[in-house]
Protein backbone atom coordinates (compact mmCIF):
# COMPACT_ATOMS: atom_id res chain seq x y z
CA UNK A 1 0.00 0.00 0.00
CA UNK A 2 1.19 3.46 -0.89
CA UNK A 3 1.87 5.65 2.10
CA UNK A 4 0.43 9.14 2.09
CA UNK A 5 2.24 12.32 2.98
CA UNK A 6 0.80 14.54 5.67
CA UNK A 7 -0.40 17.14 3.16
CA UNK A 8 -2.18 14.46 1.17
CA UNK A 9 -3.94 13.16 4.24
CA UNK A 10 -5.17 16.65 4.97
CA UNK A 11 -6.50 17.09 1.43
CA UNK A 12 -8.17 13.69 1.50
CA UNK A 13 -9.77 14.34 4.84
CA UNK A 14 -13.26 15.74 4.68
CA UNK A 15 -13.58 18.93 6.71
CA UNK A 16 -16.50 18.73 9.14
CA UNK A 17 -17.15 22.46 9.11
CA UNK A 18 -15.98 25.31 6.93
CA UNK A 19 -14.44 27.05 9.94
CA UNK A 20 -11.09 25.23 9.71
CA UNK A 21 -8.30 27.68 9.01
CA UNK A 22 -4.73 27.19 7.93
CA UNK A 23 -2.35 28.34 10.66
CA UNK A 24 -0.50 31.45 9.60
CA UNK A 25 3.26 31.05 9.68
CA UNK A 26 4.37 34.27 8.06
CA UNK A 27 7.03 36.21 9.98
CA UNK A 28 5.92 39.14 12.11
CA UNK A 29 6.13 42.62 10.67
CA UNK A 30 8.33 45.23 12.29
CA UNK A 31 5.33 46.82 13.99
CA UNK A 32 4.34 43.48 15.48
CA UNK A 33 7.87 42.78 16.60
CA UNK A 34 8.07 46.17 18.29
CA UNK A 35 5.63 44.63 20.81
CA UNK A 36 4.60 47.97 22.28
CA UNK A 37 1.55 48.63 20.03
CA UNK A 38 0.09 45.28 21.07
CA UNK A 39 0.71 46.17 24.72
CA UNK A 40 -1.08 49.50 24.33
CA UNK A 41 -3.98 47.74 22.64
CA UNK A 42 -4.26 45.30 25.52
CA UNK A 43 -4.00 48.08 28.08
CA UNK A 44 -6.78 49.98 26.32
CA UNK A 45 -8.97 46.91 26.64
CA UNK A 46 -8.33 46.50 30.36
CA UNK A 47 -8.82 50.23 30.90
CA UNK A 48 -12.13 50.07 29.08
CA UNK A 49 -13.27 47.35 31.43
CA UNK A 50 -13.03 49.77 34.35
CA UNK A 51 -16.17 51.48 33.08
CA UNK A 52 -18.15 48.33 32.41
CA UNK A 53 -21.13 47.47 34.55
CA UNK A 54 -20.26 44.81 37.09
CA UNK A 55 -22.70 41.92 37.23
CA UNK A 56 -22.00 41.04 40.87
CA UNK A 57 -24.83 41.37 43.37
CA UNK A 58 -23.67 42.26 46.92
CA UNK A 59 -25.40 39.22 48.37
CA UNK A 60 -26.30 39.73 52.01
CA UNK A 61 -27.25 43.38 51.45
CA UNK A 62 -28.87 42.96 48.05
CA UNK A 63 -30.79 39.84 47.15
CA UNK A 64 -31.59 38.71 43.68
CA UNK A 65 -35.39 38.64 43.28
CA UNK A 66 -36.94 35.20 42.97
CA UNK A 67 -38.65 34.24 39.78
CA UNK A 68 -42.47 34.27 40.13
CA UNK A 69 -42.55 30.53 39.46
CA UNK A 70 -39.82 29.71 42.01
CA UNK A 71 -40.68 26.68 44.16
CA UNK A 72 -39.07 26.85 47.58
CA UNK A 73 -39.90 25.59 51.08
CA UNK A 74 -43.46 24.53 51.78
CA UNK A 75 -45.87 26.57 53.83
CA UNK A 76 -49.04 25.36 55.52
CA UNK A 77 -51.60 28.05 54.98
CA UNK A 78 -54.20 29.66 57.26
CA UNK A 79 -57.30 31.57 56.24
CA UNK A 80 -58.03 35.21 57.06
CA UNK A 81 -59.23 34.36 60.56
CA UNK A 82 -56.08 32.47 61.34
CA UNK A 83 -57.52 28.95 61.07
CA UNK A 84 -55.52 26.16 59.48
CA UNK A 85 -56.71 25.21 56.02
CA UNK A 86 -55.39 21.67 56.01
CA UNK A 87 -57.94 18.87 56.48
CA UNK A 88 -55.41 16.04 56.34
CA UNK A 89 -57.03 14.51 53.25
CA UNK A 90 -53.70 13.09 52.17
CA UNK A 91 -53.97 14.09 48.53
CA UNK A 92 -50.61 15.86 48.72
CA UNK A 93 -48.95 12.76 50.13
CA UNK A 94 -50.43 10.69 47.32
CA UNK A 95 -49.38 13.20 44.68
CA UNK A 96 -45.84 13.44 46.01
CA UNK A 97 -43.52 11.54 43.63
CA UNK A 98 -40.73 11.48 46.21
CA UNK A 99 -42.96 10.27 49.04
CA UNK A 100 -41.71 13.04 51.26
CA UNK A 101 -44.98 13.91 53.00
CA UNK A 102 -46.55 12.07 55.93
CA UNK A 103 -49.42 13.16 58.11
CA UNK A 104 -51.77 12.05 60.86
CA UNK A 105 -55.35 13.24 60.91
CA UNK A 106 -57.36 14.18 63.97
CA UNK A 107 -60.94 15.31 64.64
CA UNK A 108 -61.64 18.86 65.65
CA UNK A 109 -63.04 19.08 69.19
CA UNK A 110 -65.66 21.56 70.33
CA UNK A 111 -64.05 24.92 71.11
CA UNK A 112 -61.31 24.46 68.53
CA UNK A 113 -63.26 26.17 65.75
CA UNK A 114 -60.91 29.16 65.87
CA UNK A 115 -57.92 26.87 65.22
CA UNK A 116 -59.03 24.64 62.38
CA UNK A 117 -61.32 25.58 59.56
CA UNK A 118 -62.97 22.18 59.06
CA UNK A 119 -63.89 19.22 61.23
CA UNK A 120 -60.78 17.26 60.38
CA UNK A 121 -57.25 18.58 60.70
CA UNK A 122 -53.65 17.38 60.53
CA UNK A 123 -52.36 16.62 64.02
CA UNK A 124 -48.97 15.78 62.58
CA UNK A 125 -47.68 16.93 59.21
CA UNK A 126 -44.10 16.24 58.20
CA UNK A 127 -42.13 16.85 55.04
CA UNK A 128 -38.69 15.38 54.58
CA UNK A 129 -36.80 18.14 52.82
CA UNK A 130 -34.03 15.74 51.82
CA UNK A 131 -36.52 13.66 49.86
CA UNK A 132 -38.53 16.54 48.51
CA UNK A 133 -37.75 17.49 44.90
CA UNK A 134 -39.72 20.76 45.05
CA UNK A 135 -41.86 19.78 42.07
CA UNK A 136 -44.93 21.54 43.43
CA UNK A 137 -47.32 18.62 42.78
CA UNK A 138 -48.54 18.78 46.42
CA UNK A 139 -49.57 22.36 45.82
CA UNK A 140 -51.47 21.38 42.69
CA UNK A 141 -53.14 18.46 44.42
CA UNK A 142 -54.38 20.40 47.45
CA UNK A 143 -58.14 21.16 47.22
CA UNK A 144 -58.04 23.49 50.23
CA UNK A 145 -55.21 25.83 49.24
CA UNK A 146 -53.50 24.60 52.38
CA UNK A 147 -50.02 23.94 51.08
CA UNK A 148 -47.95 25.97 48.69
CA UNK A 149 -44.30 26.45 47.98
CA UNK A 150 -42.73 29.71 49.18
CA UNK A 151 -39.78 31.82 48.05
CA UNK A 152 -37.19 30.49 50.48
CA UNK A 153 -35.07 27.39 50.45
CA UNK A 154 -34.09 24.95 53.19
CA UNK A 155 -31.12 26.23 55.18
CA UNK A 156 -28.15 23.94 55.84
CA UNK A 157 -28.25 21.65 58.84
CA UNK A 158 -25.82 19.40 60.65
CA UNK A 159 -28.16 16.42 61.03
CA UNK A 160 -30.54 14.56 58.81
CA UNK A 161 -33.33 14.83 61.31
CA UNK A 162 -33.06 18.60 61.08
CA UNK A 163 -34.40 18.35 57.56
CA UNK A 164 -37.66 16.70 58.59
CA UNK A 165 -39.89 19.71 58.90
CA UNK A 166 -42.86 19.39 61.25
CA UNK A 167 -45.93 21.50 61.61
CA UNK A 168 -44.20 24.15 63.72
CA UNK A 169 -41.67 24.70 60.91
CA UNK A 170 -44.18 24.71 58.10
CA UNK A 171 -47.18 26.55 59.53
CA UNK A 172 -47.57 30.14 58.42
CA UNK A 173 -47.68 32.77 61.25
CA UNK A 174 -51.15 33.74 62.42
CA UNK A 175 -52.46 36.65 60.29
CA UNK A 176 -54.37 38.15 63.22
CA UNK A 177 -51.74 38.05 65.95
CA UNK A 178 -48.66 38.52 63.72
CA UNK A 179 -49.80 40.17 60.47
CA UNK A 180 -46.31 41.30 59.37
CA UNK A 181 -44.74 37.88 59.77
CA UNK A 182 -47.74 36.40 57.96
CA UNK A 183 -47.35 38.75 55.01
CA UNK A 184 -43.63 38.09 54.83
CA UNK A 185 -44.04 34.32 54.93
CA UNK A 186 -46.87 34.46 52.42
CA UNK A 187 -44.80 36.35 49.86
CA UNK A 188 -46.09 36.83 46.34
CA UNK A 189 -46.27 33.22 45.40
CA UNK A 190 -49.64 32.41 47.03
CA UNK A 191 -51.39 34.87 44.73
CA UNK A 192 -49.63 33.50 41.68
CA UNK A 193 -50.60 29.96 42.59
CA UNK A 194 -54.27 30.76 42.94
Amino acid at each position, binding site marked *: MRSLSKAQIITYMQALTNRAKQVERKPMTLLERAYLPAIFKGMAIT*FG*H*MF*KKRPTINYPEVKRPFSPVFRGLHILNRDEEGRENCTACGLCAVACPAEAITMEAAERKAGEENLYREEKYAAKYEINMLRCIFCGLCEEACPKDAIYLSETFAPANFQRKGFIYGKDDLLIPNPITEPEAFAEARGNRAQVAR
Partner: protein
Amino acid sequence: MLLSIELALILEKLALIVVVVMSSLLIAMYATFAERKVAAIMQDRRGPNRAGPFGILQPVADGLKLFFKEEIIPNLSSKFLFILGPCLAMLTAMMTGAVIPWGDKVHFFDRDIPLQIADINIGILYVFGVVSMGVYGIMIGSWASNNKFSLMGGLRAASQIISYELAMGISLIALLMTTGTLSLKEIVEQQQESWYSWNIIKQPLGFLIFLICAFAECNRTPFDLPEAENELIGGYHTEYSSMKLGFFLFAEYINMFLSSAVMVSLFFGGYDIPFLNDAAFAEKIGINWMALLHAGMFLLKAASFLFLFMWVRWTIPRFRYDQLMNLGWKVLIPLALINMLVTGAFILLQQNNWHF
Protein backbone atom coordinates in the same frame (compact mmCIF):
# COMPACT_ATOMS: atom_id res chain seq x y z
CA MET B 1 25.43 76.92 70.54
CA LEU B 2 26.91 74.47 68.12
CA LEU B 3 25.45 71.59 70.07
CA SER B 4 21.94 73.06 70.02
CA ILE B 5 21.99 73.36 66.24
CA GLU B 6 23.22 69.83 65.93
CA LEU B 7 20.48 68.58 68.21
CA ALA B 8 17.83 70.41 66.22
CA LEU B 9 19.21 68.94 63.02
CA ILE B 10 19.13 65.45 64.45
CA LEU B 11 15.59 65.97 65.69
CA GLU B 12 14.34 67.31 62.39
CA LYS B 13 15.97 64.50 60.44
CA LEU B 14 14.60 61.95 62.89
CA ALA B 15 11.11 63.35 62.50
CA LEU B 16 11.50 63.33 58.75
CA ILE B 17 12.72 59.73 58.76
CA VAL B 18 9.80 58.63 60.90
CA VAL B 19 7.33 60.41 58.66
CA VAL B 20 8.86 59.07 55.43
CA VAL B 21 9.18 55.50 56.67
CA MET B 22 5.71 55.46 58.16
CA SER B 23 4.08 57.01 55.14
CA SER B 24 5.83 54.71 52.71
CA LEU B 25 4.72 51.75 54.83
CA LEU B 26 1.19 53.08 54.85
CA ILE B 27 1.22 53.71 51.13
CA ALA B 28 2.60 50.22 50.49
CA MET B 29 -0.17 48.83 52.71
CA TYR B 30 -2.83 50.58 50.72
CA ALA B 31 -1.04 49.70 47.49
CA THR B 32 -1.85 46.05 48.24
CA PHE B 33 -5.48 47.05 48.68
CA ALA B 34 -5.40 49.18 45.54
CA GLU B 35 -3.84 46.31 43.65
CA ARG B 36 -6.73 44.03 44.52
CA LYS B 37 -9.29 46.71 43.77
CA VAL B 38 -7.71 47.60 40.43
CA ALA B 39 -7.50 43.94 39.51
CA ALA B 40 -11.14 43.49 40.44
CA ILE B 41 -12.35 46.52 38.53
CA MET B 42 -10.41 45.55 35.42
CA GLN B 43 -11.95 42.08 35.57
CA ASP B 44 -15.49 43.39 36.14
CA ARG B 45 -15.46 42.22 39.76
CA ARG B 46 -15.99 44.22 42.95
CA GLY B 47 -12.87 43.40 44.92
CA PRO B 48 -12.53 43.39 48.71
CA ASN B 49 -15.43 45.33 50.22
CA ARG B 50 -16.24 43.50 53.46
CA ALA B 51 -13.73 44.87 56.01
CA GLY B 52 -14.83 48.37 56.92
CA PRO B 53 -16.59 50.83 54.61
CA PHE B 54 -15.63 50.00 50.98
CA GLY B 55 -13.18 47.47 52.39
CA ILE B 56 -10.64 50.07 53.49
CA LEU B 57 -9.67 48.00 56.54
CA GLN B 58 -8.72 45.07 54.30
CA PRO B 59 -4.93 45.68 54.52
CA VAL B 60 -5.19 45.73 58.32
CA ALA B 61 -7.04 42.43 58.22
CA ASP B 62 -4.46 40.97 55.84
CA GLY B 63 -1.60 42.11 58.07
CA LEU B 64 -3.23 40.67 61.18
CA LYS B 65 -3.82 37.40 59.40
CA LEU B 66 -0.16 37.18 58.43
CA PHE B 67 0.92 37.95 61.98
CA PHE B 68 -1.27 35.22 63.45
CA LYS B 69 -0.11 32.52 61.05
CA GLU B 70 2.33 29.88 62.14
CA GLU B 71 5.99 30.67 61.49
CA ILE B 72 7.57 27.73 59.76
CA ILE B 73 11.33 27.52 59.40
CA PRO B 74 12.27 24.44 57.38
CA ASN B 75 14.41 21.94 59.24
CA LEU B 76 17.20 21.82 56.72
CA SER B 77 17.31 25.52 56.03
CA SER B 78 20.09 27.83 57.05
CA LYS B 79 18.20 29.51 59.84
CA PHE B 80 20.10 32.76 60.19
CA LEU B 81 20.09 33.45 56.47
CA PHE B 82 16.48 32.32 56.23
CA ILE B 83 15.50 35.11 58.59
CA LEU B 84 18.00 37.57 57.13
CA GLY B 85 16.48 37.28 53.64
CA PRO B 86 13.15 39.02 54.21
CA CYS B 87 14.74 41.50 56.62
CA LEU B 88 17.23 42.53 53.95
CA ALA B 89 14.51 42.78 51.31
CA MET B 90 12.50 45.07 53.58
CA LEU B 91 15.52 47.13 54.66
CA THR B 92 16.79 47.83 51.17
CA ALA B 93 13.28 48.63 50.02
CA MET B 94 12.95 51.27 52.73
CA MET B 95 16.41 52.77 52.23
CA THR B 96 15.72 54.26 48.81
CA GLY B 97 13.35 56.79 50.34
CA ALA B 98 16.24 58.61 52.01
CA VAL B 99 17.37 60.60 48.98
CA ILE B 100 14.04 61.39 47.39
CA PRO B 101 12.99 65.06 47.68
CA TRP B 102 9.35 64.83 48.77
CA GLY B 103 8.87 68.59 48.67
CA ASP B 104 10.82 71.83 48.66
CA LYS B 105 11.09 72.92 52.30
CA VAL B 106 9.01 73.84 55.31
CA HIS B 107 9.65 76.65 57.75
CA PHE B 108 9.24 75.76 61.43
CA PHE B 109 10.89 77.24 64.56
CA ASP B 110 12.93 79.73 62.48
CA ARG B 111 14.51 76.90 60.55
CA ASP B 112 14.19 75.93 56.93
CA ILE B 113 13.69 72.21 56.89
CA PRO B 114 14.20 70.60 53.48
CA LEU B 115 11.76 67.76 52.85
CA GLN B 116 14.50 65.31 51.98
CA ILE B 117 16.24 63.06 54.46
CA ALA B 118 19.68 63.32 52.87
CA ASP B 119 20.63 65.55 49.97
CA ILE B 120 23.75 63.66 48.96
CA ASN B 121 25.47 64.77 45.79
CA ILE B 122 25.46 61.24 44.34
CA GLY B 123 21.76 60.65 45.11
CA ILE B 124 20.92 58.62 42.04
CA LEU B 125 23.99 56.40 42.42
CA TYR B 126 22.89 55.71 45.98
CA VAL B 127 19.46 54.69 44.67
CA PHE B 128 21.14 52.34 42.21
CA GLY B 129 23.33 50.80 44.85
CA VAL B 130 20.46 50.20 47.22
CA VAL B 131 18.15 48.82 44.55
CA SER B 132 20.81 46.32 43.47
CA MET B 133 21.20 45.34 47.12
CA GLY B 134 17.52 44.44 47.07
CA VAL B 135 18.22 41.29 45.13
CA TYR B 136 20.40 40.05 47.98
CA GLY B 137 17.33 39.66 50.15
CA ILE B 138 15.70 37.49 47.52
CA MET B 139 18.85 35.50 46.77
CA ILE B 140 19.76 34.87 50.39
CA GLY B 141 16.19 33.98 51.29
CA SER B 142 15.83 31.63 48.35
CA TRP B 143 19.16 29.91 48.92
CA ALA B 144 18.58 29.52 52.64
CA SER B 145 15.22 27.85 52.01
CA ASN B 146 17.05 24.73 50.76
CA ASN B 147 14.37 24.24 48.13
CA LYS B 148 15.05 23.82 44.44
CA PHE B 149 12.13 25.93 43.33
CA SER B 150 13.17 28.71 45.66
CA LEU B 151 16.71 28.59 44.38
CA MET B 152 15.47 28.75 40.79
CA GLY B 153 13.44 31.80 41.69
CA GLY B 154 16.42 33.43 43.36
CA LEU B 155 18.67 32.72 40.38
CA ARG B 156 16.10 34.14 38.03
CA ALA B 157 15.78 37.26 40.18
CA ALA B 158 19.55 37.74 40.25
CA SER B 159 20.11 37.28 36.54
CA GLN B 160 17.10 39.40 35.66
CA ILE B 161 18.14 42.29 37.87
CA ILE B 162 21.73 42.18 36.63
CA SER B 163 20.55 42.20 33.00
CA TYR B 164 18.12 45.04 33.41
CA GLU B 165 20.32 47.11 35.67
CA LEU B 166 22.68 47.60 32.73
CA ALA B 167 20.05 49.02 30.41
CA MET B 168 18.68 51.11 33.26
CA GLY B 169 22.09 52.52 34.03
CA ILE B 170 22.85 53.37 30.41
CA SER B 171 19.46 55.03 29.92
CA LEU B 172 20.19 57.03 33.02
CA ILE B 173 23.61 58.11 31.77
CA ALA B 174 21.88 59.89 28.89
CA LEU B 175 19.65 61.67 31.37
CA LEU B 176 22.58 62.62 33.59
CA MET B 177 24.40 64.07 30.58
CA THR B 178 21.54 66.52 30.13
CA THR B 179 21.16 67.38 33.81
CA GLY B 180 24.85 67.48 34.62
CA THR B 181 24.29 66.45 38.23
CA LEU B 182 23.72 63.29 40.22
CA SER B 183 21.86 64.95 43.07
CA LEU B 184 18.16 64.21 42.97
CA LYS B 185 17.38 67.54 44.58
CA GLU B 186 19.16 69.45 41.83
CA ILE B 187 17.62 67.30 39.12
CA VAL B 188 14.17 68.13 40.49
CA GLU B 189 14.98 71.82 40.84
CA GLN B 190 16.06 71.97 37.21
CA GLN B 191 12.59 70.81 36.21
CA GLN B 192 10.69 73.39 38.24
CA GLU B 193 10.24 75.95 35.46
CA SER B 194 7.22 74.47 33.74
CA TRP B 195 5.97 71.15 32.49
CA TYR B 196 8.02 71.35 29.29
CA SER B 197 11.22 71.52 31.29
CA TRP B 198 10.48 68.05 32.65
CA ASN B 199 13.06 65.51 31.65
CA ILE B 200 10.47 63.29 29.96
CA ILE B 201 10.44 65.85 27.12
CA LYS B 202 14.21 65.67 26.74
CA GLN B 203 14.53 61.93 27.21
CA PRO B 204 11.37 60.10 26.08
CA LEU B 205 13.21 56.98 24.95
CA GLY B 206 15.36 57.03 28.06
CA PHE B 207 12.20 57.16 30.15
CA LEU B 208 10.65 54.23 28.32
CA ILE B 209 13.74 52.11 28.88
CA PHE B 210 13.94 53.22 32.51
CA LEU B 211 10.27 52.35 33.00
CA ILE B 212 10.62 48.86 31.53
CA CYS B 213 13.73 48.25 33.64
CA ALA B 214 11.91 49.53 36.73
CA PHE B 215 9.22 46.91 36.12
CA ALA B 216 11.93 44.28 35.91
CA GLU B 217 13.72 45.53 39.02
CA CYS B 218 10.51 45.40 41.05
CA ASN B 219 9.82 41.84 39.82
CA ARG B 220 6.46 42.94 38.54
CA THR B 221 4.50 41.35 35.73
CA PRO B 222 5.47 40.95 32.86
CA PHE B 223 8.84 40.33 34.51
CA ASP B 224 7.69 38.42 37.60
CA LEU B 225 9.66 35.31 36.75
CA PRO B 226 11.29 34.97 40.19
CA GLU B 227 7.93 34.18 41.77
CA ALA B 228 6.20 32.68 38.74
CA GLU B 229 3.65 30.72 40.72
CA ASN B 230 2.65 28.34 37.96
CA GLU B 231 6.24 27.38 37.17
CA LEU B 232 8.04 27.64 40.51
CA ILE B 233 5.20 27.21 43.03
CA GLY B 234 5.98 30.48 44.80
CA GLY B 235 9.48 31.14 43.53
CA TYR B 236 11.84 32.55 46.14
CA HIS B 237 9.21 32.69 48.88
CA THR B 238 7.94 29.11 48.53
CA GLU B 239 9.14 28.11 51.99
CA TYR B 240 8.16 31.32 53.73
CA SER B 241 5.11 31.75 55.88
CA SER B 242 3.62 34.24 58.31
CA MET B 243 5.13 37.71 58.51
CA LYS B 244 8.38 36.71 56.82
CA LEU B 245 6.33 36.07 53.70
CA GLY B 246 4.53 39.31 54.44
CA PHE B 247 7.86 41.14 54.45
CA PHE B 248 8.75 39.78 51.02
CA LEU B 249 5.37 40.74 49.60
CA PHE B 250 5.45 44.08 51.34
CA ALA B 251 8.96 44.86 50.13
CA GLU B 252 7.68 44.46 46.58
CA TYR B 253 5.07 47.14 47.14
CA ILE B 254 7.49 49.49 48.86
CA ASN B 255 9.89 48.97 45.97
CA MET B 256 7.11 49.78 43.57
CA PHE B 257 6.23 52.97 45.40
CA LEU B 258 9.80 54.14 45.73
CA SER B 259 10.71 53.37 42.13
CA SER B 260 7.61 55.35 41.16
CA ALA B 261 8.97 58.16 43.33
CA VAL B 262 12.37 57.92 41.64
CA MET B 263 10.77 58.03 38.20
CA VAL B 264 8.70 61.04 39.21
CA SER B 265 11.74 62.91 40.47
CA LEU B 266 13.90 62.00 37.49
CA PHE B 267 11.48 62.44 34.63
CA PHE B 268 8.29 64.15 35.77
CA GLY B 269 9.51 67.21 37.63
CA GLY B 270 9.32 65.75 41.12
CA TYR B 271 7.07 67.91 43.27
CA ASP B 272 6.57 70.51 40.51
CA ILE B 273 2.94 71.48 40.02
CA PRO B 274 2.28 71.87 36.29
CA PHE B 275 0.57 75.03 34.92
CA LEU B 276 1.33 76.94 38.13
CA ASN B 277 3.93 79.55 38.94
CA ASP B 278 5.14 77.92 42.14
CA ALA B 279 7.24 80.79 43.48
CA ALA B 280 4.47 83.37 43.07
CA PHE B 281 1.89 81.04 44.56
CA ALA B 282 4.17 80.27 47.52
CA GLU B 283 4.32 84.03 48.30
CA LYS B 284 0.55 84.06 48.50
CA ILE B 285 -0.12 81.03 50.71
CA GLY B 286 3.15 80.67 52.60
CA ILE B 287 5.99 78.19 52.36
CA ASN B 288 4.49 75.54 54.62
CA TRP B 289 1.22 75.24 52.72
CA MET B 290 3.16 75.23 49.47
CA ALA B 291 5.28 72.36 50.77
CA LEU B 292 2.11 70.45 51.59
CA LEU B 293 0.78 71.08 48.09
CA HIS B 294 4.11 70.01 46.63
CA ALA B 295 4.19 66.78 48.63
CA GLY B 296 0.58 66.12 47.62
CA MET B 297 1.46 66.64 43.97
CA PHE B 298 4.44 64.34 44.32
CA LEU B 299 2.30 61.62 45.88
CA LEU B 300 -0.32 62.08 43.17
CA LYS B 301 2.29 61.56 40.46
CA ALA B 302 3.73 58.56 42.30
CA ALA B 303 0.23 57.14 42.74
CA SER B 304 -0.42 57.39 39.02
CA PHE B 305 2.75 55.41 38.45
CA LEU B 306 1.58 52.85 40.98
CA PHE B 307 -1.62 52.61 38.99
CA LEU B 308 0.42 52.06 35.85
CA PHE B 309 2.28 49.22 37.58
CA MET B 310 -1.01 47.57 38.48
CA TRP B 311 -2.62 48.28 35.13
CA VAL B 312 0.26 46.58 33.33
CA ARG B 313 0.21 43.68 35.74
CA TRP B 314 -3.42 42.88 35.02
CA THR B 315 -2.99 43.26 31.27
CA ILE B 316 0.22 41.59 30.15
CA PRO B 317 1.13 37.94 30.57
CA ARG B 318 4.54 36.91 31.87
CA PHE B 319 7.57 36.70 29.58
CA ARG B 320 9.24 33.41 28.92
CA TYR B 321 12.76 33.32 30.29
CA ASP B 322 14.52 33.50 26.92
CA GLN B 323 12.22 36.32 25.83
CA LEU B 324 13.15 38.20 28.98
CA MET B 325 16.84 37.83 28.26
CA ASN B 326 16.39 38.71 24.58
CA LEU B 327 14.51 41.86 25.49
CA GLY B 328 17.07 42.87 28.06
CA TRP B 329 20.29 42.19 26.18
CA LYS B 330 19.33 42.44 22.52
CA VAL B 331 16.78 45.24 22.60
CA LEU B 332 17.01 47.44 25.65
CA ILE B 333 20.78 47.71 25.97
CA PRO B 334 21.37 48.61 22.25
CA LEU B 335 18.47 51.06 22.43
CA ALA B 336 19.89 52.63 25.55
CA LEU B 337 23.32 52.87 23.93
CA ILE B 338 21.87 54.55 20.85
CA ASN B 339 19.93 56.91 23.09
CA MET B 340 23.11 57.77 24.94
CA LEU B 341 25.07 58.39 21.74
CA VAL B 342 22.36 60.57 20.23
CA THR B 343 22.06 62.58 23.42
CA GLY B 344 25.82 63.02 23.57
CA ALA B 345 25.92 64.20 19.95
CA PHE B 346 23.16 66.71 20.65
CA ILE B 347 24.93 68.09 23.69
CA LEU B 348 28.18 68.42 21.75
CA LEU B 349 26.36 70.24 18.96
CA GLN B 350 24.67 72.51 21.45
CA GLN B 351 27.96 73.39 23.09
CA ASN B 352 29.36 74.09 19.63
CA ASN B 353 26.46 76.46 18.86
CA TRP B 354 24.93 73.97 16.36
CA HIS B 355 28.00 73.92 14.08
CA PHE B 356 29.39 70.60 12.92
